[in-house]
């Protein structure tokens, strides 16, 4: 199978859309954080475009892998998810074609559409052909197989960061730190670039600041009404991936913290009112697991305006305290990687102290949530494996939950109407509980 080397039509479309949203928001601002988000998101893609034109070595990396490493090596890289399925949300319309391509290599419904799209992007040449592919087994089995498959299809070398389950196993820190050391050596060989160790230590310090900012934000989010826009629960989460340990990351999170803080102090809700209308009311506080799919941002705005249902937090925003020591950069980066809320929650037994069920039950209490919405992507084994336990545990503590039969990246999987109908049923449930007191 011969793949096209680079077709930038889709990336250019995404960049154009992002730029026009950015211009639009500049005129009618909804907050500094969102502006920065669009600016840096565009920049992530633009940099690749430029690096390609300069003929530089480009790295394709699963977004959740430690971004500190390519940054400190000054290696242009793109996050395969943010730039792939993420592009659907910014209007690049890739879903049908990429899913068709993925079929040719046997990836059907049982493989999460997000990952199928990344494989399809590579097959279509919509990712510029990388010099190498880096991935790891977190967050899931599919992840562990799809990136090596992409490398196989593109006929480029790949590196696999091995993380034995469970992420919370203390022995993992040194095991993964050694993996990262090997990754650096490998990258130096394949790319010809050298690691700048001083810069790596800086990323550790910046990463530490990011964790702290995240922790401040999650405290502020306990305010009533929720001071955050639903889609920002995803946007900030992505940002933590692709700008991990960078000045941009700190910049964005500082802006987000200031913004939610200001709103919380004022008692304003995260979702701005429609011009000339009364402020948006919060009747029900709901937690989202995983973060609100980017393609459903508008639907959740609708849910809030129409029924007063706010998204208070996504459990993937809940960072633990992470010990970060610039003098032990690899160990610190490994620790942060394994404590990224997604990996920490999904890659530990679900009922262990770090696990997703424990985290969610605790969050429901901390954020005084009226309910939990679970975006049940049927092809996601990670979710399928804990949904029943989670719902039973939540029910024991009196918190109702709903599962949406949904696909995080393929908007055609569940129609907007069907989703809204399901949301209205959930509102009915929340209302009936309200009456019962």
């Amino acid at each position: 199978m011969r793949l096209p080397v680079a077709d930038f039509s889709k990336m250019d479309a995404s960049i154009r859309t992002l730029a026009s949203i950015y211009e639009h928001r500049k005129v009618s601002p909804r907050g500094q954080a969102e502006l920065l988000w669009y600016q840096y998101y565009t920049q992530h893609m633009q940099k690749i475009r430029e690096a390609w034109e300069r003929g530089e070595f480009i790295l394709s990396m699963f977004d959740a892998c430690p971004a500190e490493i390519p940054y400190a090596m000054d290696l242009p890289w793109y996050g395969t998810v943010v730039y792939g399925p993420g592009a659907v949300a910014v209007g690049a319309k890739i879903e049908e074609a990429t899913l068709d391509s993925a079929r040719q290599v046997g990836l059907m419904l049982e493989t999460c559409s997000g990952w199928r799209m990344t494989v399809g992007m590579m097959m279509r040449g919509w990712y510029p052909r990388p010099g190498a592919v880096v991935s790891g087994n977190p967050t899931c089995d599919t992840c562990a197989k799809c990136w090596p498959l992409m490398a196989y299809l593109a006929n480029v070398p790949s590196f696999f960061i091995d993380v034995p389950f469970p992420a919370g196993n203390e022995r993992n820190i040194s095991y993964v730190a050694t993996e990262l050391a090997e990754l650096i050596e490998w990258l130096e060989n394949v790319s010809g670039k050298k690691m700048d160790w001083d810069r790596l230590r800086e990323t550790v310090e910046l990463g530490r600041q990011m964790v702290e900012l995240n922790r401040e934000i999650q405290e502020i989010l306990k305010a009533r009404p929720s001071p955050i826009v639903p889609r920002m629960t995803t946007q900030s989460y992505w940002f933590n991936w692709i700008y991990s340990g960078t000045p941009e990351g700190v910049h964005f999170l500082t802006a987000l913290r200031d913004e939610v803080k200001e709103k919380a102090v004022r008692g304003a809700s995260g979702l701005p009112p429609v011009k000339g209308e009364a402020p948006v009311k919060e009747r029900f506080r709901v937690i989202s697991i995983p973060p609100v799919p980017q393609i459903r941002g508008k639907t959740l705005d609708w849910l809030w305006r129409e029924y007063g249902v706010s998204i208070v937090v996504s459990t993937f925003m809940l960072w633990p305290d992470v010990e970060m020591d610039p003098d032990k950069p690899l160990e610190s980066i490994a620790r942060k990687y394994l404590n990224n809320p997604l990996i920490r929650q999904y890659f530990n037994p679900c009922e262990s102290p770090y696990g997703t069920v424990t985290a969610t039950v605790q969050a429901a209490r901390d954020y005084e949530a009226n309910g939990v919405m679970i975006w049940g992507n049927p092809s996601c084994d990670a979710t399928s494996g804990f949904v029943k336990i989670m719902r039973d545990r939540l029910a024991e503590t009196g918190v109702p939950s709903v599962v949406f039969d949904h696909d995080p990246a393929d908007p055609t999987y569940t129609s907007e109407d069907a989703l809204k109908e399901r949301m209205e049923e959930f509102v009915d449930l929340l209302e009936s509980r309200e009456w019962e007191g």
Partner: protein
Amino acid sequence: MVVAGIDIGSRIAKAAIMEAGSIVSYAVLDTGLDSTQTAMKVLRLAASKAGATASDIQYIVATGYGRVLVEFADEMVSEIACHAKGVNYYFPSARTVLDVGGQDSKVINCDEKGRVVSFAMNDKCAGGTGRFLETMADLLQLPLDKMSMLSLKAAKPVPLSSHCVIYEKSEVLLKLRQGVPKYDLVAGIYESLVTRIMDLLAKVSLQEDFVFGGGVARNIGLFTKLQERLGVGAKTIPEPVIQGAVGAAVLAGERMREGHARKHQKEWNTWLTTI
């Protein structure tokens, strides 16, 4: 030399008669309850159309789901091999054959002699088969051919969750209640079927000439959509329904030439005296 091929499908039984290397006649009957009896009937019918009698037939190959029940057949061959041979009879240049049947669908790569090089079949799900269209036609209370034409008129196909027939049924009902125009819905249904067929086609390498066969081949809506989506033109064979039986007859002819002896002469003789 008169030989025959029989294709006992789950609903229709087909027979084709070949004489001196050419298909000279064929017949089609409902399968009914007794597959062997039906096989004999359809064989007699086909033979009489060729101006012959069943006793003239010297070798019989059976295929289709009911193939194991045709006790007088000299050989049983899979539908896959027979369809490839059948298409090859009409189009020796065919390299990819798609067969969308009522119960299952298959796609075959074959060589210039109609030999199977690789193939794939749909899985348990009815989504990629003619049965899916029938279910949906029932739901919309439209005759199949009307539905096929309607699909071509859609301005904006309604996306359906390409997930499961059961889910799609309830989704279609919901849309109907919401007043979505039938032709947009029908187009959505066709899109969904095409997606399922694409799943299947992805399993082999699509090479030209591409031939579209099987009972659903005459469905103009499906045929059009599929060519659009693939960006590849397709041919259809004149009588797609009997393509399997034709292939079986071609194989029977080959076996005769190779000098194979009849394997079930005794059973055949017994059956010749019945009905």
